[in-house]
């Protein structure tokens, strides 16, 4: 029987409502399948890539997905993923799972993973005009990603490179129209946040991402006229905190916190950013102020990684077309840097408000989420679950960091940023 593959949609698809619960026994046999049939994959991809745009009408989307899916291609791609990414499989599925809001889906959903990856790549290049320049910038950013000291990155990235060739001008057009939609929505006078969430679910164009994130996190008000004054007030408020607390970082009761942050900042990613003294200063201030103001959790390793996406996205607001990771942050005017710092602080605070029990004593939030992941895997891929169990591998041993750092360590930064577009739509709590 054909298993449906559903692209990301908002609100997320609920299989219970659609009566398509999947039997656990319907897994494909584990025979190796060669990567040679690229055309088949492309065919599959073109059949499903438009699923990412729909979302206005769920039923329509489901109908299209059901119609266009070729079981053979689905299974073949599933095998490919299983064979070639046996380790990554968990992570992929996990991300995909979360994109689908932890609903029960069949083994066939593995096939949507490459499609999802491809989308992640495309969203990075949004705002570019020609597809050839897209490819250049993407391949350069990919090389950098591959040099990251993460074992998991190269297969993921090379996988994306394989599919990268299928970027077509039509998609660029589509992206342009998406950008227009966003611009209209953001122009006001009152941004319809529900509409913005719907639209953001499948990715936010790079150019409007900073403002979209600020709106989605609740940092900026929907009313256009109030935005500027809110930004002014919040930025002032943040620097008042800095004034009030930052000198206490070497006091007896705060020095442990500060020292931990100070040790961790040179050890964060991406490498190029952390080597800039200006960036180090900013991150230390943001993290210290947050930790002092949230004594229930304080500073926990991993939180440092959560500043990065905000910082990088907000820097993009002030620079043109440049790769942030190569950008000399100190070349920005002091005032601009202060704005980026304050905005990053507030948006990170909003994010952490929703997941604070990830970082309080015994980290109950993470324990719960790892447990959920275990349940999920046991339902959708019993084979993997049994395998882990037989080898006495505990989910906490490998999935802890996924939750603690919101996948920041597992995928390249631009993929995290794309994921966060979707996360912010229904609050981080839902996903992590």
């Amino acid at each position, binding site marked *: 029987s054909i298993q449906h593959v559903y692209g990301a949609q908002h609100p997320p698809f609920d299989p219970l409502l659609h009566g398509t619960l999947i039997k656990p026994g319907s897994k494909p046999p584990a025979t190796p399948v060669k990567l040679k049939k690229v055309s088949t994959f492309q065919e599959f991809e073109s059949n499903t890539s438009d699923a990412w745009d729909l979302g206005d009408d769920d039923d329509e989307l489901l109908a299209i997905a059901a119609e266009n899916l070729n079981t053979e291609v689905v299974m073949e791609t599933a095998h490919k993923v299983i064979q070639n990414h046996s380790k990554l499989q968990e992570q992929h599925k996990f991300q995909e799972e979360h994109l689908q809001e932890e609903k029960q889906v069949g083994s066939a959903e593995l096939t949507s993973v490459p499609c999802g990856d491809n989308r992640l790549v495309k969203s990075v290049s949004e705002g570019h005009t020609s597809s050839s320049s897209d490819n250049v910038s993407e391949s350069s950013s990919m090389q950098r990603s591959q040099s990251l*000291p993460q074992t998991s990155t190269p297969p993921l990235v090379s996988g994306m490179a394989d599919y990268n060739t299928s970027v077509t001008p039509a998609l660029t057009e589509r992206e342009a129209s998406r950008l227009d939609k966003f611009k209209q929505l953001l122009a006001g006078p009152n941004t319809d946040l529900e509409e913005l969430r719907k639209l953001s679910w499948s990715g936010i164009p790079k150019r409007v991402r900073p403002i979209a994130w600020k709106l989605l996190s609740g940092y900026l008000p929907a009313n256009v006229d109030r935005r500027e004054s809110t930004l002014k007030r919040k930025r002032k408020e943040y620097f008042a905190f800095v004034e009030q607390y930052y000198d206490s970082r070497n006091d007896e009761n705060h020095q442990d916190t500060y020292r*931990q942050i100070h*040790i*961790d900042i*040179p*050890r*964060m*990613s991406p*490498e190029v950013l*952390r080597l800039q003294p200006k960036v180090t200063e900013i991150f230390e201030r943001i993290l210290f102020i947050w930790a002092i103001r949230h004594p229930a*959790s*304080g500073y*926990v*390793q*991993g939180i*440092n990684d959560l500043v990065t996406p905000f910082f990088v996205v907000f820097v993009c607001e002030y620079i043109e077309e440049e790769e942030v990771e190569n950008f000399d942050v100190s070349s920005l005017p002091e005032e601009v840097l202060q704005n980026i710092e304050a905005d990053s602080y507030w948006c990170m605070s909003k994010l952490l408000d929703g997941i604070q029990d990830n*970082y309080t*004593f*015994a*980290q109950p939030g993470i324990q719960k989420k790892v447990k959920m992941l275990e349940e999920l895997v046991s339902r959708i891929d019993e084979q993997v679950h049994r395998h882990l169990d037989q080898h*006495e591998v*505990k989910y*906490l*041993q*490998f999935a*802890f*960091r996924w939750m*603690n*750092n919101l996948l920041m*360590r597992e995928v390249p930064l631009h993929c995290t940023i794309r994921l966060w577009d979707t996360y912010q739509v229904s609050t981080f709590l839902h996903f992590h």
Partner: protein
Amino acid sequence: MQKHSQKEHLYKLLVIGDLGVGKTSIIKRYVHQNFSPHYRATIGVDFALKVLSWDAETVVRLQLWDIAGQERFGNMTRVYYREAMGAFIVFDVTRPATFEAVTKWKEDLDSKLVLPNGKPVPTVLLANKCDQGIDVLMNNGIKMDQFCKENGFVGWFETSAKENININEASRCLVKHIIDSESDPVQSVEPDIIKPHLNSSKIVSCSACFKS
């Protein structure tokens, strides 16, 4: 070195200690023979494998568990400790607070993990970053020997991941104690013999561990 006469051992070893003392660096040095000042903070646990040709008949595979040092993660350690055969506890000689935490780590370890024979797992203490020249604790080796005896360490080493000092030696010391304790099954079936400081008799017998 005939195939049929080779024995293989697989040991899970823990590497624990406060954050930033150099646990990851020690493992990377030991396993990959390199060093970077920029390893990222370990979250949860990382793994590495080292294969040792112990002697003509024996191959030892070490599964090194690099466990995050931050206190907030302390609740997870039970899951990571299980079935380990030995441990390194690491501190940073330039930060006295990390030495003070050593006993805390030892207690955590011993309270959550014992060998099948009921004894604590062999543990070696590593005084890391000895290349830094800020040697506040090491000026008295006899005191350190005493500290190890009192706290049940089978030995201690001044190490430097940066300069590759004593890491192989420390590992050989730990492995030797693990092999010894494995080939010493008599005590395990006679619980009466087990005493709190049983290990101390072994310390003397291992000349490699203590520099005089």
